[in-house]
């Protein structure tokens, strides 16, 4: 099936967005959302492997209870760098800025995003922020953890907190402007017949994630600016020695950083909602409920941040309020998992690589979500928080969830973006390897956490060693699995077969244009129908 209509495709490389203006200058001044997406993809891949290198150091260090590879100082800087880079320079921009930028205008039948120049400016801000983060590393690193808890980050740390905080501040603007751009694009640039309830769920999630970026990121930016000011001028708003309150910082920080989790996971849900119907050949089950659950997650997700602070000295009553809200926000996520599963029923399922990633996503996300439910219960959170249980939980959601979906999306739309087919065998092997490597890395960490091993420990009691060794072994498999796609995807650019316009016989407007799409996106007006009309022939 995958190459059935490749023969019908009219290869028109001269019209593709890749061609036309060549050269670095043309790329660095481009306003084409597709080229900006490629620019983002390059940056994100670079940061992913930078953060991955830090993770490798961490896992190697933890093979032995005494942590003999790194000094405590280097270890602390390694996990801080890993967190900062993976959260702000990989996960947050990953799907929205690459797949979102590339696909959003295509999916709604637009020629570009609403503010193309702003879109390019966002990329420059992102890179500029990233350079600050890298500079902080070169200057000696930062040892506060990615959460910058006060008063440690303001009054006690002697590392380059200022540089990294500025980096995150700057890249925050990239986030805000991307979100603003997407919101306006979705509101104003949909094709005439593209009504809200005909939008692919990926577009819905892009809309939701944009709202979160626009409404949460300013709070982070200002809070980090205050951290910078506290370090410079000893302001004391977060410093108990001067009468300030460190929990105020935590509230402000988590007001952003919990919704930030939804910035990471909502787009992943969107990608999976595109992949599954395609390889099941069925409409998605409960489209309307899927949209409602996206919106519910977006809004309620802003009211749960205090569940990061159950043992932080927060009032017991506040903890109970945040706890019930956290249980409530789990309901729409559960609905989504059930709906994806129900979509499989009565389908005609094939198991190409994107589908393997999507199925892996459902399993891992579900495990991450269910353990999140345990952490939402404050009585269980007391022993489990700040242990490896939490580390495992959010890696299941962010790596098992977001990264699996990101790679699934890259595989699904690779033929559209590049016009080439990758090696299906290698891709399936990588997906399966990743799934097992991931579970071997992170499942032992749930047990470690339940046993009580605290997170951010450079050395640990010998009792914890067996599980740590298992986890590190898994991490080496995982690292290999992440390197594989780089190899075979790059190889496909050279040697891959021509993909054709619609290799998966998918619906969605992006499949109605050429692969790769021309600069103006559509040479002829695409035909708009309901989303996921797999029960009807492709237009």
């Amino acid at each position, binding site marked *: 099936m995958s190459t059935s209509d490749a023969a019908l495709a009219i290869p028109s490389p001269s019209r593709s967005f890749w061609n036309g203006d060549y050269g670095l200058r043309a790329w660095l001044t481009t306003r084409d959302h597709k080229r900006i997406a490629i620019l983002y993809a390059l940056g994100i891949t670079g940061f992913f492997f930078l953060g991955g290198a830090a993770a490798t150091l961490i896992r190697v260090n933890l093979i032995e209870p005494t942590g003999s590879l790194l000094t405590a100082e280097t270890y602390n800087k390694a996990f801080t760098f890993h967190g900062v880079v993976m959260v702000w320079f990989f996960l947050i921009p990953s799907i929205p800025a690459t797949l979102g930028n590339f696909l959003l205008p295509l999916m709604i039948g637009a020629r570009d995003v609403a503010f193309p120049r702003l879109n390019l400016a966002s990329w420059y801000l992102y890179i500029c922020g990233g350079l600050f983060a890298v500079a902080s590393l070169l200057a000696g690193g930062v040892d506060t953890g990615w959460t910058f808890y006060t008063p440690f980050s303001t009054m006690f740390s002697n590392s380059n907190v200022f540089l990294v905080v500025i980096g995150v501040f700057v890249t925050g603007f990239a986030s805000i402007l991307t979100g603003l751009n997407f919101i306006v694009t979705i*509101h104003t640039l949909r094709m005439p017949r593209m009504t809200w309830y005909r939008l692919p769920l990926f577009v819905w999630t892009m809309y939701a994630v944009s709202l979160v970026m626009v*409404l949460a990121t300013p*709070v982070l930016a200002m809070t980090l600016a205050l951290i910078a000011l506290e370090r410079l001028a000893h302001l004391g708003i977060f410093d108990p020695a001067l009468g300030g309150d460190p*929990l*105020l910082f935590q*509230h*402000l920080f988590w*007001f952003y950083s919990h919704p930030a989790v939804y910035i990471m996971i909502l787009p992943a849900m969107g990608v999976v909602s595109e992949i599954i119907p395609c390889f099941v050949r069925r409409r998605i089950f409960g489209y309307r409920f899927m949209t409602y659950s996206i919106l519910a997650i977006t809004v309620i997700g*802003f*009211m749960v*941040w*205090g569940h990061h*602070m159950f043992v932080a000295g*927060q*009032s*017991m*009553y*506040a903890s109970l*309020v*945040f706890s019930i809200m956290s249980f409530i926000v789990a309901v729409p996520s559960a609905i989504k998992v059930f709906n994806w599963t129900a979509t499989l029923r009565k389908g005609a399922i094939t198991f190409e690589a994107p589908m393997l990633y999507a199925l892996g996503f459902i399993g891992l996300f579900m495990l991450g979500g269910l353990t999140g439910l345990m952490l939402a219960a404050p009585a269980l959170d007391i022993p489990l928080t700040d242990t490896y249980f939490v580390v495992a939980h959010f890696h299941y959601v962010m790596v098992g969830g977001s990264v699996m979906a990101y790679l699934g999306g890259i595989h699904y739309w690779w033929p559209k973006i590049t016009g080439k087919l990758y090696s299906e065998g290698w891709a399936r092997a990588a997906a399966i390897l990743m799934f097992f490597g991931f579970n071997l890395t992170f499942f032992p960490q749930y047990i470690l956490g339940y046993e009580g091993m605290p997170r951010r420990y450079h050395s640990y009691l010998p009792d914890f060693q067996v599980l740590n060794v298992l986890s590190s072994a898994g991490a080496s498999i995982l690292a290999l699995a992440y390197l594989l796609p780089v190899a075979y995807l790059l190889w496909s650019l050279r040697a891959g077969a021509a993909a054709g316009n619609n290799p998966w016989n998918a619906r969605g407007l992006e499949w109605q244009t050429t692969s790769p799409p021309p600069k103006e996106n559509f040479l002829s007006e695409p035909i708009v129908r309901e989303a996921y009309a797999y029960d009807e022939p492709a237009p």
Partner: protein
Amino acid sequence: MNAHATDKVAPVSRYLWVLAALLALLALTAGTALLKLGAFNTPLNLGISVAKTALVMSIFMHSTEGRRLTFMVSLLGFIWLAILIGFALTDFTTRALVPAPW
């Protein structure tokens, strides 16, 4: 929206009346701040600020005249700020109540 811009321009007097009202509210808020109203000073001041904001947004910024979407977006920032402050206050206002009432 297709119509010529001049069709939907409010008279100058309307703007001036609103300015007069804003300045009157300013005088009111400054004046009542000097009265001993105890716990009511701050709510009164904030109420007046909300009234002033409503005037500026609806008349000067025309937030209620265009699309309904514009109006909704104009409230968005305020609603989210209320979420931030409201939920944070659940912590800071109940910390002293250490023992459970049951």
